[in-house]
């Protein structure tokens, strides 16, 4: 197996709100290997986006990274990203670790044309001498992300482009500095399915061409099946299961993963009745004691209410946090 490019250990992020302390993620640990696509899946509010942002300290007040380490291992080095001062993390963010966010409309600045915005990201990381120099490179970058007619498009403003084209531009900005890790946070949720297919294909293509490691955040099990090599399933701020993608879909072990997979209607299968998970996602201000899934779990035992389950290796490369497995 290739080397670990990113190691996340006991990452904990809390948000200090008027209503109380929201324990958004608690003791989250996982490794990402070089060249793979690692998917973080879960429902709204499970902490998948917070995890992705905390990797490069992108947590704003009232949120705070309470504990944990994130080791980034480029050639021969080992950096704890959470200990780096602002200046240094800024050179890594965008340069080594780049992001693509869900809504391309809000990640682009409406007042600048897209060529300027691609060029700007090259300029701030010192790849070009001036913004003007960067425009030529921007044309090439926009060509690699298959934006039609890039020579003309560089002078377009975001409002002149469709959602799919805007997302191509943000991917262009993402890959402009040749990053080692690309974190895609719900990159296709705001797009239509046919456009989604194009963007997912593009991300795969960028991965093939530049060998970039992808961390994909999504709630869509279909997208996971299509894109991921390994999957981490999150529930209420904790990782409950980590395994290779076929293993997660064929032999899910955690009761939540099992329930989640059965609750998604597959258009290729005839389903008489969907199985459901009773109840709703708990509040993270007062999360349930012990295993956070216990109030909704069909296989609850006494220990589940009392003790927090640790992530254990139940099979080779298959980790589960459950007392009953």
């Amino acid at each position, binding site marked *: 197996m290739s080397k670990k490019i990113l190691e996340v250990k006991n990452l904990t992020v809390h948000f200090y709100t008027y209503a109380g302390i929201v324990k958004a993620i608690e003791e989250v640990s996982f490794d990402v290997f070089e060249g793979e696509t690692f998917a973080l899946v879960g*429902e*709204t509010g499970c902490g998948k986006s917070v995890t992705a942002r905390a990797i490069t300290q992108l947590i704003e007040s009232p949120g705070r990274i309470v504990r944990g380490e994130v080791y980034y291992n480029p050639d021969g080095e080992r950096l704890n990203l959470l200990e780096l001062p602002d200046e240094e993390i800024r050179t890594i963010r965008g340069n080594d670790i780049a992001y693509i966010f869900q809504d391309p409309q809000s990640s682009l600045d409406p007042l600048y044309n897209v060529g300027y915005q691609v060029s700007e990201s090259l300029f701030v990381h010192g790849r070009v001498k001036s913004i003007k120099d960067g425009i030529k490179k921007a044309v090439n970058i926009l060509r690699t992300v298959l934006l039609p007619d890039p020579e003309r498009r560089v002078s377009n403003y975001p409002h002149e482009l*469709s959602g*799919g*084209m805007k997302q191509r531009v943000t991917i262009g900005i993402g890959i402009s500095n040749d990053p080692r890790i690309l974190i895609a946070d719900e990159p296709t949720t705001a797009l*239509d*399915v*046919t*456009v*989604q*297919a*194009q963007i*997912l*294909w593009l991300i795969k293509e960028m991965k093939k061409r530049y060998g970039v490691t992808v961390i994909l955040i999504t*709630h*869509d*099990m*279909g*997208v*996971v*099946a*299509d894109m*991921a090599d390994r999957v981490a399933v999150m529930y209420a701020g904790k990782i409950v299961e980590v395994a290779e*993608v*076929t293993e997660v*879909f064929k032999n899910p072990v955690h009761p939540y993963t099992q*329930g*989640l*997979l*059965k*609750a*998604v*209607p*597959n*258009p*290729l299968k*005839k*389903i008489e*009745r*969907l*199985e*459901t*998970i*009773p109840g*709703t*996602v708990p509040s993270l201000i007062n999360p349930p004691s012990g295993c956070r899934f216990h109030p909704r779990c069909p296989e609850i035992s006494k220990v589940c209410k009392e003790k927090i389950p640790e992530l254990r290796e139940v099979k080779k490369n298959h980790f589960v946090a459950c007392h009953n497995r």
Partner: protein
Amino acid sequence: MSLSEAEYMVQENSRTLLRVENLKKYFPVKGLFFTKGYVKAVDDVSFTIEKGETFGLVGESGCGKTTVGRTILRLIEPTGGRIVYEGRDVTKFRKNEMGWFRKKAQIMFQDPYSSLNPRQTVFQLVMEPVKHHGIGVDDPEDFVVELLELVGLNEGHLYRYPHEFSGGQRQRIAMARILSLKPDFVVLDEPTSALDVSVQANILNTLKDIQEDMDLTYLFISHDLGIVKYMSHRTGVMYLGKIVEVGESDRLFEEPLHPYTKLLFSAIPVPDPDIEKSKGKIEVQGEPPSPINPPSGCRFHPRCPYAKEICREKEPEFKEIEKNHQVACWLY
């Protein structure tokens, strides 16, 4: 091509609840002084819905599926065409007839956070439609509790406000409101797209149960193929204001005929890595064009891998290829 009244009586099958004929809705695009053009949101759409069935409408955003749902209920006035409900033309209804129709036909909206008045309690919310239509209820409290139990809520929720409920529970309140009028027909406009998957499954199952218990007919609008397949008996696929294919759901999903339907089905990632990683994907060309100036002939031709000369020039007619399976495409 509308039929005369006499022809209707012959054609009107006793199983048919709703017949939509050549429905059109054009929205004007205003310039500074003049109307610059029209967005043809719905253009010549026809289909029928039988009693007790669920008819699904799928398509990407902007294809006109929501406009169809709202135009049928006359929440938006149609530009042309007929909507025949139980043999009567809804587009010609006057005020008192509309009152009757509004009781019979209901709609459930996508966003349960904006469809409920935050200042009303559940009791007031559920009683509001009943009061509006002047229906007498012996014991309002009992009446509301009975409805709440039907949709999976209980007596304890009676005097609470919408903000105290989760998205799934709010959608259940919306359901209770709809059922308070004992409707026959309900338009479900993306009822679960604001919800999480684990909650979504619950709501879909409840909708199915209620349909059986109360003998309801549904028009189910969604962009999610898996959900439409699960919910509907028959499905219509929309593209840029037109229905391109209609068929029984099982058959349609097994063997889609229209190139757009094929493209749509291939583009949607299925939750199964074996299928997903091995399936040959149809390469998607371009993006949906603007409905202001739709392409000539078949509206799908600029993106269609099988486009021929005739597709550019003439619009394909809706043809029955096999029993209960119609397609608008020159390939067939």
